[in-house]
Each structure stands twice: as C-alpha cells, then as structure tokens.
C-alpha cells in the first residue's frame, strides 16, 4: 500500500514522547502553583472564619482572646515557617522521583540488623532484595507479589500485595504521612556533605522520623525512623545510599517467573481464587458506583444522589448494583448519602450482607474501596461517624442558642430539645442504653475557643473519645492524658 492511500491512518501513527525536561517543567509548575493556591485558599478560609466569628458577640470575645494570646506570646499564627518551606522542596523531589534506589538497615529489638536493598519504579513497582538472597517484586497497580528464591529455584506468586513489604517502602510511607509538622534539628556532616536535619512529628504519635537533606540539592541523603509495628515492637530503620532517577531496567520488575523455576501459588486452591475474583469484581462495581456518585456531585454543586436509583436514571447499568458475591440479592450494596462537610474517610457504600464471613468491601467518599476483615472495626467506624455528626449538631445548636441569648450557652442540653435539637441526637450510637450519651460542660465566660464543652460519656477509655470544643469543632482524642489536659486547661483570656 502506498503511503498516500491511507493518509489518515498514517497521521494517527505519529507519536512523539514528551521529554524529561518538559516533564520536570510541568511537574515543578504543578507543585509551585498548588503550593501557592493552598496558601491563598487557607488565607481565604481564615477570612471567612473571621467573618463568621465577628458576627457573634460570644465568638468576638473568643477571637479577641486569641489575638491577645497570639500577640502576647509573639506567635506568627498565620505564617509558614522556614523549615516548612525548605522541607517542602525535599518533599517535592520525593514526590517527583521517577525511580529510586536505596538501602535500608532495619533493626528490631534483640535481632541483628537486616540490610535490604530496594528499587522503586514509580508509580507502582518495587523490588526488594533481602539478605538471604530472596527477591520480592511488588506491583501495587496489579496488586501482585512475586517472591524469587534463587537458592531453591522457586517462585511464589501471590495475587494480593504483601503487607510485610510496607516496611521497606520508605518513600511511599513518607508520602502518606498525614498532617505532620516539621522542625529543623540543625546540621550534621554525612559522608562529607553538610546535611540539614528535619524532624517530622504528628500529634499523638510517638514515632520518630528524621530526614537529613543536602541543602544544595534539596535531596534526602539519610532517613532515620523509629516506629512501632502493630504489635508494639520497636523497629529502627536507617535509609542511606539514596539515588534518585537512576536508569532502572523494567525487566528487574517482571512478575513472570524466570525459566527453570518452579511456581507456587500461595492463594491456594481454585475456590479461593474464584472467591477472590468475585471480591475484586464487587470492588470494581463499587468503584463504578462511587465514580458515578462523584460525577453526580460534580454536576449538582457537591450534592450526592439521594439513592442509587438516581444513578440508574443517569444510565448506570443496573447490573452493577448486583453484588457478584451475592447475586441473589436485588440490591447488593447499601448506600449512605454523605452529609456536608464531607470527610474523605466517610463510608458511603458497603456490601449488603446477612452474615459477616471473611469481610466486606467498603467504599469511601473519596472513591476508594477497601476490604475490611473485622466486623467490629466496620461497625465502630459507622457508629463513630454518627457520633461525631451528632456532636457537631449539638454544638451548632448550642452556638445558635448562645447567639439568641446574649452569649449565654444553655444550662443543660435538655434546653435545646425539641426546638433546636431532636431528642434522639442525644443518644450515643455506641451506647444507646445510656440516658445521656454525652457530657456537657457549660462554658464559663469569657469563652476560650479551645474550651471543652462536650464529650462522649464513657465508663472506660478504650481507644479514645470524641470531644467537642467551644469553637464548634469535634476532635477524636486517643490519649486520655491529652483529654485531661484539655479539660484542665486554664482559660487563656486576658
């Protein structure tokens, strides 16, 4: 065939690849623009909060108190620190890395240190070389793990990602640390380079994470972490030999077994595979439903559909609502319309079930789906969400009451019923047998925004409680000592 015969087909074959330089330029711009917009957004939010505060006499007083305290202690409340700016550059490099190689020295109590070399090919692939010669290859995208045992010429294949490997995935772990703050811990010479140290801390978290970075390149050169695993065992990890964007051959991450190796599937017999397939298929259905919900919300000013039937009217194939794990059910999934404000961890969809079995798929408001094995964990999550929502409603009713009553809060929560609050809001979802599910402390005037005014009634502490503050926010507090501190905090008003 002559080229002129099919010019259109030929034009479709044109294919150029964007250069690494363009990638870097765009990624840098993305980072810079979003950093800027987040700053503006937070300033805008602060302004809105400020307007809201200044509408009410009571919150005006509280705001005045905060200003006095801020000025008194010389705190630049709204500013960002130099540490954050410098560390942001380090994080930017971590975020933008296409490949990474590094060495971890891992020390557990009463064990010899283990030296593990790791290679990462973003976004999904990781290769871990263990000291005993075994190699683990993990594909996060496909959710597969391959173990190469060269001594026994054997491969072990698992169709689920192995949690044990998370320990070696230093940078993915780093990217996923939520809400941390950064402090500069000074300089130190590491391998002849003057490095700057940043310590990352989180509220109610004893784990220690220190990043030593080259101030010239803003690249991390050493990372030290001391964390506790699920069993409370302390694990110390030191990451060195960190190389960014080295050329890594794709073949290093191949998930098919080499020739001459025997294969073993750890997921067991066929039935288990079929079961897993159905589970995955159901999760895929749920992702589709969540996607449609998100699209619906996007077209309706953030409002989610009232029921899944609304999606059918918008051409969601009805068979997606049938759970392949329980095809006999007409409605395979339970939908909970999310309330506003939406938190990313809010449960909005889960598999309908008569008995718990090995677990259920649960869908969250941000569109992701997780398989939850423990029923208690799932039930408590639902109840905790309802508890926090009820407490927010109570606080809001109190604040509105105060606005209508010259800044005076109600003497008891009973005063809010029924005009401002439904009676069942005061029943604690986890402890419905209690008459009063929440303890209310009428705030003394003048009011400090951080004054505890409401908390869950409890006999024992358990894993924590929700606590409501005078400024109308609710926080889950894990440590009892922190809660007691908040309760006893003097009212900082001058």
């Amino acid at each position: 065939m002559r080229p002129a015969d099919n010019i259109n087909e030929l034009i479709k074959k044109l294919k150029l690849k964007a250069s690494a330089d363009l990638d870097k330029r765009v990624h840098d711009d993305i980072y810079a623009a979003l950093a800027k917009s987040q700053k503006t957004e937070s300033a805008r939010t602060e302004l809105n909060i400020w307007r809201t505060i200044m509408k009410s006499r009571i919150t005006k007083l509280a705001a005045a108190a905060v200003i006095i305290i801020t000025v008194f202690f010389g705190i630049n409340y709204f500013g960002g620190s130099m540490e954050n700016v410098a560390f942001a550059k380090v994080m930017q490099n971590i975020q933008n890395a296409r490949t990474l190689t590094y060495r971890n020295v891992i020390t557990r109590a009463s064990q010899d240190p283990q030296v593990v070399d790791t290679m990462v090919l973003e976004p999904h692939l990781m290769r871990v070389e263990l000291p005993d010669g075994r190699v683990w290859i993990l594909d996060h995208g496909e959710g597969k793990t391959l173990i190469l045992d060269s001594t026994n010429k054997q491969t072990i294949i698992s169709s689920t990602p192995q949690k044990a490997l998370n320990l070696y995935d230093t940078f993915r772990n780093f990217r996923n640390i939520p809400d941390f703050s950064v402090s500069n811990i000074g300089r130190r010479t590491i391998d002849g380079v003057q490095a700057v140290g940043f310590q990352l801390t989180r509220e109610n978290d004893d784990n220690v994470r220190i990043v030593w970075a080259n101030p010239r390149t803003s690249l991390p050169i050493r990372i030290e972490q001391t964390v506790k695993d699920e069993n409370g065992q302390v694990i110390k990890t030191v990451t060195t030999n960190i190389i960014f964007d080295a050329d890594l051959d794709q073949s290093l991450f191949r998930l098919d077994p080499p020739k001459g190796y025997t294969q073993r599937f750890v997921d067991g017999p066929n039935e288990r595979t079929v079961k897993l397939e159905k589970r995955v298929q159901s999760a895929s259905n749920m992702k589709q439903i969540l996607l449609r919900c998100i699209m619906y919300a996007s077209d309706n000013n953030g409002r989610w559909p009232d029921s899944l039937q609304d999606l059918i009217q918008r051409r969601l194939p009805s068979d997606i609502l049938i759970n392949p794990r329980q095809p006999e059910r007409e409605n395979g999934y339970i939908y909970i319309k999310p309330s506003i404000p939406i938190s990313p961890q809010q449960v909005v969809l889960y598999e309908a079930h008569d008995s718990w079995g090995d677990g259920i798929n649960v869908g969250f408001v941000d569109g992701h789906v997780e398989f939850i094995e423990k029923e208690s964990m799932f039930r408590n999550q639902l109840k905790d969400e309802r508890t926090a929502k009820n407490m927010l409603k109570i606080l809001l009713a109190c604040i509105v009451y105060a606005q209508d009553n010259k800044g005076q809060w109600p003497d008891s929560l009973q005063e809010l019923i029924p005009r401002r609050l439904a009676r069942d809001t005061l029943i604690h979802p986890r402890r419905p047998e209690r008459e009063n599910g929440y303890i209310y402390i009428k705030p003394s005037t003048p009011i400090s925004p951080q004054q505890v005014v409401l908390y869950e009634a409890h006999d024992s502490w358990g894993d924590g409680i929700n606590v409501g503050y005078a400024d109308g926010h609710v926080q889950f507090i894990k440590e009892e000592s922190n809660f007691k501190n908040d309760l006893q905090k003097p009212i900082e008003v001058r």
Partner: protein
Amino acid sequence: MLEDKLLIWKFNRGNRNALRGIYEKHKDNLVTLAAALLNDVSSAEDVVHDVFVSFIESSRKFRLTGSLKGYLATCVANKSRNKNKAKQIHQSITLDEANPASANSNSPEFRAIFSEELRQLSWALQQLPYEQREVLILHSYSGMRFKTIAQQQSVSINTVQGRYRYALDKLRSMLDGEARK
C-alpha cells in the same frame, strides 16, 4: 471519560496527583499534536508547557463540559496558532538572518523518532499552508469534528471541509511523488 471526570473532580479540589495524572495521560498526544502543527519539537513542548501552566492556574474554577482530551487539544491548537503567527512576524522581520529549516522533518530529532514513511508524511505536512495543516491534524489525529474546528477558527464549516480536502489532495500528490522517486 469517567476517569477524566474523576480526575477533574479531584483537580478542582487541588489534588496534585490528579493534575499529574492528567498531564501523564495526555502529554504525548499533545506534544505530537503541537509538533505536527509547528514542525518543531522544542516549540511544541513550549506550547504544551504553556497550556498546562494556564490549566493549572484555572484549577478551582475549571468546569469540563465536553471531553478533556478535546479541551486540551483545542488549547494546544490555539497556542500553536498564536506561536505560528508570532514566528511568521519574526521571520518577516529577520528574513535575511533567519534559518527557517532549524527544526523540520529532516532534523536529527525527527529522524531519530520517525520511520521513513512517517518522515515523508511529516515533510509533506510542512509544505501545507498552516490553516490546511491545522484542519487535517485536528480532524485526523485528534478526532475533532469539523463543526468544532470551524467554531475554533471562526470560519464556516464549508471552509473547514474545503481546507481538509485541499490538504488531503496536496498530501496525496506529494507523497505519491515521493513514492515514485
């Protein structure tokens, strides 16, 4: 389409990974489109970069009405047209000093990238007037409808279809000529 909707939803909420996802998904097509319009890989990358800078700046107010691919292709076509105009003005000013063949289908970068057949096509595309080339590339490569191209270029649909036919005829004759050599 669904995936794009989700990416845009996250993008509106300032999610950096969503932006990266959009860029990674569309970058090669956009660079190819711009390079086919401008015959210059380096200028093409500048255009794609500019498009993404504008796109990033619109993050919170951006609303997708059609397809994301089509939207980005339109942006690239508009920027390429402006760049081409600016280049023409510059060339008319510095005609004596300019080296118009600095980046063309015989340049090392094109030679390295394309097969002989595609190099011939790239060379032939260069010989077309810009308006005809733009219609042909937007329709055949980006799959854009004539009606959309007409709205974009502020001309009638008949003009666009005419440009497309002329472009195809010229390409045929040029490529036939090359093939006979």
